[in-house]
Structures are given as structure tokens and as C-alpha cells.
């Protein structure tokens, strides 16, 4: 994995460009300095060792697309993407679990058919098109939500002079006591979050429906019913809790995927997050950025899996941590 990312940095273009702010205007002296500093004149295996050392100390080079060091870019853009991913996952989990449960309890009813159709559309729809449709509806026709202008209203942002504590705009605006600005930030969040949520909702509905159907046929559900428990208790306490276990995996993976940044949605909404940046970086062969981004996604996936395992232990008493 690390060897692969290393090869990418060395294979595409001149490696020293990944460490300079503006390589076009670099003097030969600067280039020589950089080559000396990052040991680029040494044989490749030695370069690899030095590169690993640099990475472990947080030096991932210079991103030309973000015009800042990769580590700094990762940190600032991650907060933007995190807010978006969290809200999108929140929407999709609430709707997905609710609709999936009803769909399974009333299998083959009109509600079930409808929810299956929605989930089919959800996995088939091009997200950039869905986002555009939402923009047409909520921005152009109804005027309820702001257009694709990123995370905030730029004029307001410069007027408010925000004191950044965390980098999460929703939290920062509240900490600064600027509630009108908070509302603006939330309004900017809504549409891209809805766009992202649609696809993951579709997947969660599917998963929830199929695992719920499986659970409803199980012996302990029959037992619960024959005990004379009200149907609501059977569904909520006995069936749904067990059906949630496989769904958790899907939620965790989709959250991890969203954290990695949604290139298309972020590009459409001009969202200054990981997705837009990594997309631009890949298109412009900003190798240092692609490398740093790849590293970050790997870490996110590992963490997402860890969180899923912890939730497993909470949901399923047969799983014990430790």
C-alpha cells in the first residue's frame, strides 16, 4: 500500500514538484535544494525510506491544487466533508431504517412496492443529476435554499469575522454566538446532504428490508408473538434490534465512503471538501495530494470498521469486545 502510493509520487512527473509551492517559477538552485533536502538524488529504495520517514512526521508535500501543504489541506477540507457526511448519514439512517422496517413488516403492500421503487431509483440515479434537480426545485423554483455556493455565503463570511475554534462551521458559529450565520451554514448544508443521503438511504432500505424479513421468520419472533406481546413490541424490541446488526455494517461502510469525499456532489455544490479537492487533484495530477488523500481514506476505512465493531457489541450481546 505505502509502496504503491510512493510509486505514484515517483512515476508521475518530476518528483520535486510535489514539494514546491510554484514549481513553474522555481530556480535551479531551489530545485537542487529540494532534491538535496528530500534525498531525491539517492537510489529509489533509499528514497522510499526517507519518504516513509517524512510521511510519519506529517510531511506529505505540497498540493498545487489547494495551494497549501497537503497535511494542512487534509485537515481543513476534512472538516467540511465531515459535516456533510454526518448530516447525510443522519438523514439516511433515520429514513432508511424506518422505511425499511415498514417495507418488511408490510411486505408486498403498496408501501413496500413504493419503497422498493425508491431504493431502485436511489442506486440507479446519477448523483450530479439528482443534485441539479434539487437545485432546480429548492433554489430556482421555490427559493428556499441557497444555490451551489459552497459552505456559506461569502459576503456574510467576511463580514462576520469568525473566530475558528474547531473548523466545523456549525460548531464555530454557535461558539461565536452568531446564530444567523449558523442558520446560513445549515441552509447551505441541507441540499448537498440530501443529495448524498438519497443513495445511501436506498442501500440502507434494501439491507434493512431483507434482514428484517429474515428476522421476522425466526423462531424467537414467533415465540414473542405467541406470548401475546403486542405487535409493536415484537417489531421494535425483538425483530428490529436484530435486523439492525447487518444494517450497521452497511451504514458504517457508507459513512466511511462519504467521509472520503463525494467527488461529484461536492463538485456540483462547489463544496470545498475532500471530494472536490481530490477530484481536482487527480485530474491535474497533483500527486502529493492524491497520495495524502489515499492515505487518509485508508485510515478512515479502518476507523469506520472499528466503530462498526463497537456498535456490533452493543447491539448483539453474543459479540463481546476484548
Amino acid at each position, binding site marked *: *500500500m505505502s509502496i504503491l502510493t510512493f510509486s505514484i509520487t515517483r512515476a508521475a512527473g518530476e518528483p520535486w514538484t510535489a514539494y514546491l509551492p510554484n514549481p513553474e517559477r522555481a530556480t535551479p538552485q531551489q530545485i537542487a535544494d529540494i532534491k538535496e533536502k528530500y534525498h531525491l538524488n539517492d537510489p529509489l529504495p533509499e528514497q522510499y525510506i526517507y519518504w516513509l520517514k517524512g510521511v510519519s512526521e506529517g510531511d506529505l508535500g505540497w498540493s498545487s491544487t489547494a495551494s497549501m501543504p497537503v497535511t494542512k489541506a487534509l485537515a481543513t477540507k476534512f472538516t467540511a466533508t465531515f459535516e456533510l457526511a454526518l448530516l447525510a448519514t443522519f438523514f439516511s439512517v433515520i429514513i432508511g431504517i424506518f422505511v425499511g422496517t415498514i417495507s418488511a413488516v408490510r411486505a408486498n403492500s403498496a408501501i413496500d412496492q413504493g419503497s422498493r421503487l425508491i431504493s431502485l431509483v436511489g442506486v440507479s440515479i446519477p448523483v450530479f*443529476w439528482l443534485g441539479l434537480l434539487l*437545485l432546480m426545485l429548492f433554489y430556482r423554483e421555490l427559493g428556499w435554499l441557497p444555490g451551489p455556493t459552497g459552505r456559506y455565503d461569502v459576503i456574510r463570511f467576511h463580514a462576520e469575522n469568525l473566530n475558528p475554534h474547531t473548523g466545523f462551521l456549525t460548531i464555530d458559529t454557535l461558539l461565536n454566538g452568531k446564530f444567523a450565520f449558523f442558520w446560513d451554514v445549515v441552509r447551505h448544508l441541507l441540499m448537498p446532504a440530501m443529495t448524498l443521503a438519497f443513495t445511501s438511504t436506498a442501500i440502507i432500505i434494501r439491507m434493512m428490508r431483507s434482514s428484517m424479513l429474515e428476522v421476522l421468520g425466526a423462531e424467537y419472533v414467533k415465540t414473542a408473538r405467541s406470548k401475546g406481546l403486542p405487535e409493536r413490541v415484537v417489531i421494535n424490541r425483538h425483530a428490529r434490534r436484530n435486523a439492525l446488526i447487518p444494517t450497521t455494517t452497511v451504514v458504517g461502510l457508507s459513512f466511511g465512503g462519504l467521509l472520503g469525499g463525494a467527488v461529484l456532489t461536492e463538485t456540483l455544490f462547489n463544496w470545498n471538501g475532500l471530494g472536490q479537492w481530490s477530484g481536482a487533484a487527480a485530474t491535474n495530477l497533483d500527486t502529493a495530494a492524491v497520495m495524502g488523500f489515499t492515505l487518509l481514506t485508508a485510515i478512515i476505512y479502518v476507523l469506520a470498521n472499528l466503530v462498526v465493531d463497537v456498535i456490533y457489541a452493543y447491539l448483539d450481546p453474543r459479540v463481546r469486545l476484548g
Partner: protein
Amino acid sequence: MITGDKKGTGNKPSTPVGQDKTTASQKYKTALKLALAPRIREFRFSFHLMSRSVTSIAGMVLFAILVVVAAFPWLFAAPGPGFDPFVIPQDFDRPVPEPPGSSGFLLGSGQNGVDIYYGIIWGARISMAFAIQVVGFSVLIGTVVGLVAGYKGGAIDELMMRITDIFLSIPGLILVMAIAAVLGRDLSSTKLALLAVWWSGYTRLVRGQVLSTKENTYIDAARASGSRELKIMFRHVLPNSWAPVLVQGTMDMGTVVLVMAGLSYLGLGAPHGYAEWGVMVQEGQAFFVPGYWWMTVFPGMAILVFVMAFNLIGDGLRDVFDPKMRR
């Protein structure tokens, strides 16, 4: 050879008596019929199962329409003589986008008289060809590599799985974008980039299937009766491992088009003016504020229909191949 003879004799008892007068070719035909009969019956039964589900039928109808449009686009929208049929013809006398139903523009027009209807029709051909090539080659490579890796095991397996690991470790879309950007911004480099990333998924799928299939006793039987390794792999292991690949391949036909459209939308696929749905949405995006909705709505809908058709069929196939649902 021995196994072949055995099979022949094994079939004989079931042939009707009194066939000694028939000629050799007739005999051959009957044998072929008998050999194929279970396959045909199986296929018919699968088709019957498919046709019981409304959604599968919907998928097949959409699929049939798409195939006809993709195969004969000139019947629906004739290209101008001497022009590249994949570039949407323009009418510079009508530069302002016109709404659907304007004379000559069934689904409206874009900037400089670009016919949206024409783009949708020829876009079907582009998408279909693209998907068939990417999925077809991916399945081919993935099947062979996965089969060899799963069946042979050992060092070959280890090496091949590490190679697929590498492809799985980088976020797919980013890798595709990087490769496409290196190769140049056109549709054929996008195709290559997708292919480079896509095959590894099939390799894993086939390998996993093969690992469980090869443990079956009929594989031992084939080996005991002296079949060659290659024959076992392709006659016995592969047909019994292939159902999930078919399902996945069908679904991926849609997914590939979804990704292709996304990349074109980002400027890494078809060039401007092309009859490709993603690029058409991108071109229309700037025009939704003045209210020229048809420039984005129709091409996007085409993508949705295309992807949905293959998802519907894939779902149907999965149910058909699922032994639990089968009998």
C-alpha cells in the same frame, strides 16, 4: 477421451429403442438434442421464473428498447451526411435554447441549436458500447485470473491477490480519474482507466466462488477419471461458479455507465458537443437558472433509465439463480 466415451454410453439407455436404421448424422443430431435438452429446459425454466416478476419484465422491456436504439440509432435520428454521428449536429441560426416541441427539436435544443433528442438517441449507442467493452473485458480477465488463482492456489494465487489488493486499496474513482488524466481526456482513455480498475473485482468474486466449488466431490470424480486440469477448470469448475458473475456483470453494465457519465460530467470523458449523456448534463448545468431545464433533465433521465434497466434485470437474475427461490 475416456470420459467423453463414458458420457456417450451413459446417455444411451435414455435414447428411444429402434434407432439402428437412422443415419450417422441423424444419430448425431439426436445425441446433441439429448445433451442439450436439460440445458434448454433449464434456460426455459429460468426465463419462466424471470417472467413471473413484474420488475424483471419491466427491466427486460427497457433493455430491449435500449438495445434497439443502440443498434440502429440512425433509424431514430439521422446524422448529417459526412459528419461524425457521435457529435451532435448544431444549428447556428438558432443559438438560443428552445423548449421541447419547437419545430425540429422534439426534446428541445441547447446552445447553438444542439438537438437534445439526437444526443439522447446516439448517447444510447455510446453508453451501450462503452459498458459492453468495459464489463466484457473485465469479466474475461477477471474470470481467467480468478479461476487460475482459485483453482491452482499457492504462489500464483498469492501474487494475483496481492495485485488485486493494490487496485482495491486506492479509492476507485480517484484512481480512474488519475489514470484517465494521464492517458488524455477522451472517452477511450476513460474506458481503459475503468477497465484497469474494474477487473480486480471480478477476480475476487470468481476466486471466492472457485474456492468453494473445487471442494465438491464431482471435481474429485472428474480428476479421478483422468480429466485434464484445463478441462476440469473450464468444464466443471467454471460453469458451477459463474452465476454470481453473471448477476454482477449485469448490474455493472449500469454502474459503468453511471461512472462514465460522472467522469464525463467532470470533464474526463467525452469531449464537449458529444452525444454522451454526462457531458450533456454538464453543458446544460449553467442553463438551469434561466430556466432551460430540458438541457439537463432529459439526458439525466436517459442515464437513470439505462442504469435502472440493468439493475432490474440483475435483481431478477439474482432471484433466478438463488437456489432458495428456485424450487
